[in-house]
């Protein structure tokens, strides 16, 4: 097995622009529908998983899926297939058309867009590591854990992909993405201590397994033998991952239609929405920016609109809500070019940072709780974006300006809206992995923050 880096941007793995164009043309040529949209997703994944200080599984796969949406007037249906031969694509296009004819007209359907102008594709090479290189990165963590009499578990994931969108009105968009992630949880053999760390980037070379290992090992050692303290409202110092775990829930609730129809935190009592109203501390600015995405280009949304930077909350005020094309037209505003689901299109989210380091936050705290990350985060009340979940893998008590000891994990019931109103300090923004499953695919940049009155509602015996 060669140790030389291999590129997954080889034609056999991820489609080039020309290959994507060729597939799209084949579909469009064979589609009997009045209008047709073709969405192509081509991806490759390589991963290595380790547990109990050894690699347990690793894998590679690749696939290309083509989604064909046929329109008959205002009727639409989609068929998705991973069979790329001409006959299969033609049959899929025919099938989409046949189904579309049977679907009732959708009065909210927006016409397909014509050709759009996209920013030039930025070239960025991605070297997917060999299995041996991934195993070696894993070993950096497992060996440090072993020499400290600890047990390491973790995951390395490398993804490369190319997406294309075309339609019968001449639109063609192409985008390529790449991202890698490494996470590890190191535990003490007696099960009383657990520490977690992550490293994220756009290429394997950006990962820092040594730093990751050092952080996870240190946290595991320091978190042993936690003590119980009473649940209640505490000053909380949230590390960037914990901030991202919760703040990323805000854009998902920023659908303009739900707000206008009274089904959202962003609905204004009496009618209308909260654009222009202050909802969080004036130091909070939240935005999505295609330039932050691991994407090689600016990207585009499901309809083919080029994405653009969108500031959702600026200095605490609601600046934008997410308008799809239909709702924007109905309300007489511009459609938001951020993709679906708030920030789903750009797969990025950034909260602007400040200058207070975590060390300074700790130094200036009389009594508080330091949180590494949150877990099992679930919606409790959409009216307030209230979520529940638990602290995990490194929760510490801060007393008189110092971390004094490890404490048992807490369940919280909190809303990012509430705690961003209780802001005391913000630190520098860094890239994090905000996915509970540590999967790649987003570029989330968050600062550490210090807040008062964070609502920890009960204790957990889990380590």
């Amino acid at each position, binding site marked *: 097995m060669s140790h030389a880096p291999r590129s997954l941007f080889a034609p056999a793995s991820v489609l080039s622009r020309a290959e994507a164009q060729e597939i799209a043309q084949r579909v469009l040529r064979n589609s009997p529908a009045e209008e047709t949209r073709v969405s192509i997703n081509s991806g490759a994944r390589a*991963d290595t998983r380790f547990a*109990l*200080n050894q*690699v*347990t*599984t*690793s*894998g*590679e*796969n690749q*696939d290309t899926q083509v989604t064909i949406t046929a329109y008959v007037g205002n009727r639409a*249906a*989609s*068929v*998705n*297939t*991973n*069979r790329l031969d001409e006959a*299969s694509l033609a*049959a899929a296009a025919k*099938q989409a058309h*046949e*189904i579309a004819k049977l*679907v*009732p007209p*959708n*009065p*909210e359907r927006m016409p397909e867009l014509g050709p759009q102008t996209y920013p030039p594709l930025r070239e960025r090479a991605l070297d997917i590591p*060999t*299995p*041996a290189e991934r*195993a070696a990165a894993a*070993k950096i963590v497992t060996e440090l854990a072993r020499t400290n009499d600890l*047990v390491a578990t973790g995951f390395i*994931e490398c993804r490369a992909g190319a997406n294309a969108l075309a339609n019968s009105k001449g639109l063609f968009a192409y985008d390529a993405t790449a991202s890698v992630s490494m996470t590890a949880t190191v*535990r003490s053999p007696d*099960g009383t201590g657990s520490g977690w760390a992550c490293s994220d980037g756009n290429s394997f070379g950006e990962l820092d397994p040594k730093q990751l290992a050092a952080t996870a090992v240190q946290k595991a050692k320091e978190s042993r033998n936690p003590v119980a303290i009473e649940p209640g409202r505490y000053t909380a110092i949230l590390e960037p991952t914990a901030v991202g775990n919760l703040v990323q829930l805000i854009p998902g609730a920023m659908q303009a239609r739900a707000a206008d129809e*009274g*089904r959202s935190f962003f*609905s204004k*009592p*009496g009618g209308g929405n909260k654009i222009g109203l202050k909802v969080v501390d004036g130091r909070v600015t939240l935005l999505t920016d295609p330039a932050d995405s691991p994407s090689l280009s600016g990207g585009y949304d499901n309809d083919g609109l080029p994405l653009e930077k969108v500031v959702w909350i600026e200095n605490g005020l609601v600046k934008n809500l997410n308008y799809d094309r239909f709702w924007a037209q109905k309300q007489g505003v511009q459609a938001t070019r951020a993709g679906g689901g708030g920030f789903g299109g750009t797969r990025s989210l950034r909260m602007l940072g400040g200058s207070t380091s975590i060390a300074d936050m700790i130094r200036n705290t009389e009594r508080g709780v330091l949180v590494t990350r949150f*877990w*099992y*985060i*679930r*919606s409790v*009340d959409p*009216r*307030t974006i*209230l979520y*529940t979940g638990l602290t995990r893998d490194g929760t510490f008590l801060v007393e008189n300006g110092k971390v004094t000891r490890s404490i048992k*994990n807490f369940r919280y*019931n909190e809303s990012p809206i*509430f705690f961003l109103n209780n802001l005391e300090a913000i630190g520098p923004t860094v890239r994090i992995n905000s996915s509970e499953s*540590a*999967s790649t695919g987003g570029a989330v940049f968050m600062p550490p923050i210090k807040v008062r009155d964070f609502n920890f509602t009960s204790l*957990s*015996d*889990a380590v």
Partner: protein
Amino acid sequence: MSRTRRDFLKVGAAVAAGSLVASSPLLAESSSGLLVPLSDLPPVDDPAIKALMEVALNTAKAGGASYADVRVAARRQQNVGTRDRIVQGVSDTDTYGLGVRTLVDGAWGFAATSKLDKDSVARTTQLALGQAKANRASQLRPVVLAPTPGNQVGEWKSPIEVDPFNVAITDKVAYLLAANEAALKVKGVRNVNSSMFFLREEKSLMTTDGSYVVQTIYRAQPSMTITAVSSDFSDFQSVASNEVAPMGLGYEHVTNSKLAERAPQWGELAVQKLSAKPVEPGRYDLLLHPSNLWLTIHEVIGHPTELDRALGFEANYAGTSFIAPPEAMLGKMQYGSELMNIVGDREQRGSLGAIGWDDEAVKPVKFDIVKNGVFQDYQTTREQATMMADYYKRVGKPVRSYGCSYAQSWADVQFQRMPNVSLQPGNNDDTWESMIAKVDRGIAIVGDGSFSIDQQRYNGQFAGQVFYEVRGGKIVGQLKDVAYQFRTPDFWKGLKAIGGPRSYHLGGAFGDGKGQPSQSNSVSHGCVPAIFQQVNVINTGRKA
């Protein structure tokens, strides 16, 4: 109110035997079956597929694998989604490919491809071999597989009556829009979303042990969510059709779910919830309907009894387990009340977990997880069973897998996943209605809602869809903003009454996530209504 409630809580028996479909879209020239006569498709045990699988296994053996297995799967999914009077989307997804797993010197490797020709399959198998060989470098303990009965050969199909992919789209759309219309007629209802989801997976598995099994698995889920908004836009509340669980059945499950007939009742409940009394926090006896309890069972019994969690394999994501270490727990740990009898199985007819063989060609068996409140055994795969060999030998149990290996698709490696994990009915004739009469001061909860639990499955917080205040054995009104919190062993020790066989109901989920990369498992949980004593209830309502 009482008539509405009775109708609302009625649980239909949706399980029935029926005709089976003996066809496969594998290697079909056409993109597949929705509008293609089934007779045009090749049979499930297509010789071309079998030949490709043999290429993979022969390549693996020649490359030094002591064991290998190969899966070819064609997965067909259909979604129909509507909102109010509009069809939001109709989509049909069709994917197929091959995954091969190799074991070399006790280390695993896996690779998958959607290119199904001999060269691609051989190349993919070489990739899997390369993974395994690279992973040997960090190997501390080699993988050892438990023996299988060997040479499993056969075919299995979900017991469906009507293939959902043969039902006209117009019928499906009309069904959902009629349900939406019925809900929208309720004054105060502002928004309705409804959908249907269908899956058919045709999967062939061949192993170097000599097994070759082919299976056709169907799953179906109709669902709707109804939202009421107060006239001054100060509040909104939703009720979802959670008593209609996803099932391993065909289109008959949709027709039996009677969404249009039940939609007005759900709509009325959503509107009533707007003016429901906010719950007073405190300790209450809880009567949990099976449509709520299934999810609690899933999280606090299903997951912590997975052996990979107990041993630490899932520590980086899904978590570990409070039921550890195994030697201190097996046959000893008092999980809860003596009323608690929990079984694992992948056989129950109509359940989401029902299969003929798992993804290691092990024929699953029904097994005890908890008996009379005492923990009996973990869920296992072939690799995991050998980790328990000393214990099994000591207590005279065979070292064998319980058949819990599963991969969500051809592109993913199989690993330990939950079978159906179910609470057995009590030896009585109690039903939901008769159990309400047993509650003096409590809350009866129907449907699942928000749910969260820690990474070792101790601290849970669960909500629901509809919360009834019960006083003196009678429902006196609806509550809102209810969630219950507990510590798992204390919660189950507080189990004081369960319903009888007549009240047994299957709940379930399609999207049970675990593993890295995270995979989804589909699983059902059977249970009966149950009363839990003095559970902590919190009020989740809070003004912004």
